[in-house]
C-alpha cells in the first residue's frame, strides 16, 4: 500500500547531478519549475521537455525508478488530460463532434502540453532533488540558503533539523504503519470494502496507534539527542563542507539561459522561428 512512496528516497550514485552542490540544485529546481510552468508555445514546451529528459538521463537513475515517481500521479494525469481534451473550446472547426463530445485542435494541444508539464514537474523535481540529493545535504543546503532569515529571528536551524529528522523517519513510520495495518487485519479490520467515507473511517484505528508511537519515538529521540550534547544550531560545526565547484555555476547559468529561451520562445510563433532559422543559412 505504501511501498510506492518515493518522496525523500535517496539513491546513492556518482552522476554529475549527485555531485552538484545541493544549494545550486535548489536554485535550479526553482528555475526549472518556472520553465515547466511558463512554457506555452510548442517550441517552448519541446525545449522544457528536452531539459527534463536531459536531467533524467544525466542522473543515471534507472528507468524503473523514474516511472515509479510518476506512477502515483496516473489518475491526475488521465483526469487533467480528459478535462483539457473535451472542455477546451477552440476557434476553428471541431475535429470531432459526436453527441455531446466535441474536440477542437486546441483541446488536443492543451491536453498534450498539460501532460508534458505535469510529468516534467514530478520527474524533474524527483531527479534534481529527491533521488540524487543526500537528505543531510539537502537540509544543510536549505539551512544555508535561508540563513539570512536568522537575522530576523526565524529559527532556520531548527527548521532544517526538523526536516532532516522527518526525512529520516519516513521509512521507519511506513514500516510501522504496515505492521499496524497487518495487526488490525489479523483482528478482522476491513480496509478494502465500503465507500470512501467508510474506508477513511477504517483508517482511524491505524492512525491512533501510529501517532502514539510517533510521539513516544520523538521523546526517546529527544533524550538521545540531548545525551549527545545537542543544543541547537549555535556553535555547531559540520562534518561535510558545502562546496560550489565551477561546474555547478555553469549548470546554473545553463538553466538560467534555458529559462530565458523558454520565455523568449513563448512570445515567438513557430513560423517566425523557422524563418529566422532559414535566414541564418
Amino acid at each position, binding site marked *: 500500500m505504501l511501498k510506492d512512496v518515493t518522496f525523500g528516497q535517496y539513491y546513492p550514485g556518482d552522476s554529475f547531478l549527485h555531485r552538484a552542490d545541493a544549494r545550486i540544485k535548489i536554485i535550479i529546481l526553482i528555475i526549472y519549475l518556472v520553465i515547466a510552468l511558463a512554457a506555452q508555445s510548442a517550441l517552448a514546451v519541446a525545449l522544457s521537455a528536452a531539459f527534463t529528459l536531459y536531467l533524467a538521463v544525466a542522473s543515471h537513475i534507472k528507468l524503473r525508478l523514474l516511472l515509479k515517481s510518476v506512477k502515483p500521479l496516473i489518475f491526475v494525469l488521465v483526469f487533467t488530460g480528459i478535462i483539457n481534451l473535451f472542455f477546451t473550446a477552440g476557434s476553428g472547426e471541431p475535429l470531432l463532434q459526436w453527441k455531446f463530445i466535441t474536440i477542437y485542435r486546441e483541446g488536443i494541444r492543451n491536453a498534450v502540453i498539460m501532460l508534458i508539464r505535469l510529468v516534467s514537474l514530478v520527474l524533474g523535481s524527483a531527479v534534481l532533488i529527491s533521488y540524487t540529493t543526500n537528505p543531510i545535504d539537502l537540509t544543510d543546503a536549505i539551512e544555508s540558503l535561508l540563513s539570512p532569515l536568522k537575522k530576523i529571528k526565524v529559527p532556520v536551524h531548527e527548521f532544517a533539523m526538523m526536516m532532516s529528522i522527518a526525512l529520516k523517519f519516513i521509512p521507519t513510520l511506513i514500516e510501522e504503519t504496515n505492521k499496524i495495518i497487518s495487526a488490525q487485519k489479523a483482528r478482522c479490520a476491513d480496509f478494502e470494502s465500503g465507500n470512501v467515507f467508510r474506508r477513511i473511517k477504517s483508517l482511524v484505528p491505524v492512525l491512533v496507534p501510529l501517532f502514539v508511537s510517533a510521539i513516544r519515538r520523538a521523546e526517546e529521540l529527544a533524550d*538521545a539527542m540531548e545525551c*549527545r550534547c545537542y543544543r541547537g544550531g549555535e*556553535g555547531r560545526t559540520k*562534518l561535510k563542507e558545502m562546496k560550489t565547484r565551477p561546474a555547478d555555476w555553469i549548470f546554473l547559468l545553463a538553466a538560467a539561459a534555458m529559462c530565458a529561451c523558454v520565455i523568449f520562445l513563448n512570445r515567438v510563433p513557430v513560423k517566425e522561428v523557422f524563418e529566422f532559422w532559414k535566414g541564418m543559412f
Partner: protein
Amino acid sequence: MSFITCRGLTFSYSPESRVVINGIDLEIEKGSYTAVLGHNGCGKSTLAKLMCGILLPTGGSVCVGGIDTADAERAYEVRRKCGMVFQNPDNQLVASIVEDDVAFAPENLGLPRGEIRRRVDEALATVDMSGYAKHSANKLSGGQKQRVAIAGVLAMGPECIIFDEATAMLDPTGRQEINAAMKRLNREMGLTVITITHYMSEAVEADRIIVMDHGAVAADGSPREIFSQVEKLKAISLSVPQVTELMYEMELDGFAMPRGILHAMEAADEIEKRAGGGKK
C-alpha cells in the same frame, strides 16, 4: 577512584507522582564494568538518565567525574563524559547516513572538521562498522544499528557509557555483537561501562552487579555474591542464570552444592567431583 557518586539520591517525575528513586547512595569506580538488574518499573532507566544528566535529581546529588549534574553551566560537560545507548536502535539515530549520524555529537561539540572526521573514522573502526560509513542507517540490521549508536556515543569521547537495555530488542546474534563490544570498550579502552539488562547471562560478565527494587539498591556485589542469594532474588521476582538455578535446585534436593556457580563448566566440574570421579 569513583567516577559517578550518588548521595541520598531521590527523584520523582512530578511532585504528586510516586517517588521513582528513593534514597540511593552509590559509587561507580572509574574503569569498572557494572550491571544493573531489577524488574520493570524499579527505576533502573531513571537512574541511568540521572547519571548522565538528562534528568536532574529532586533530592540528593549525582556527581559525574567531579561535576555535579545539577550545575546548569557544566551540563554539557557531564553529558560529554557520560554517554548513553538506548533500547530502540531506530529511535536514537538522528541521521539517515551512518557517518552523518556518528558525526552528530562531535558536530554539536563544535569541533573542527578534521577532528570530526578523525573521530568518526576511529569510532566506526572501534565497533567494526568502517565498511558501512556511507550506508543508509535504515537498511542495517538491529545489531548493526546499535553498533552505530555506540559509535555515535564514542565519537563524543566519553569516559563512561551507560547501556539502557541496549540488547533488549535484538536477536541473539545482535545481542552477542553488542555484548562483545561492551566488553572490549571496558577491557581494552578502559571505559567505565554500566549496563542495564534483563539478561542474567549478560550480568554475569560484569565485575559488579547492582540489584534495584522499588527505587532503592536491594543488593550490591560481585556476580558470585549476588547469585548466591537465590531466595532473595526470587523474592523480588528476578531470575538467576540457568546454571545457578540448576545448582540451587540440586541443593534443595539434598546435594551439598557450593553457592554462586555461574558457568556451565564450573557446574560440570562440581557435579563430577561429587559423582566420585566416575569413568574418565
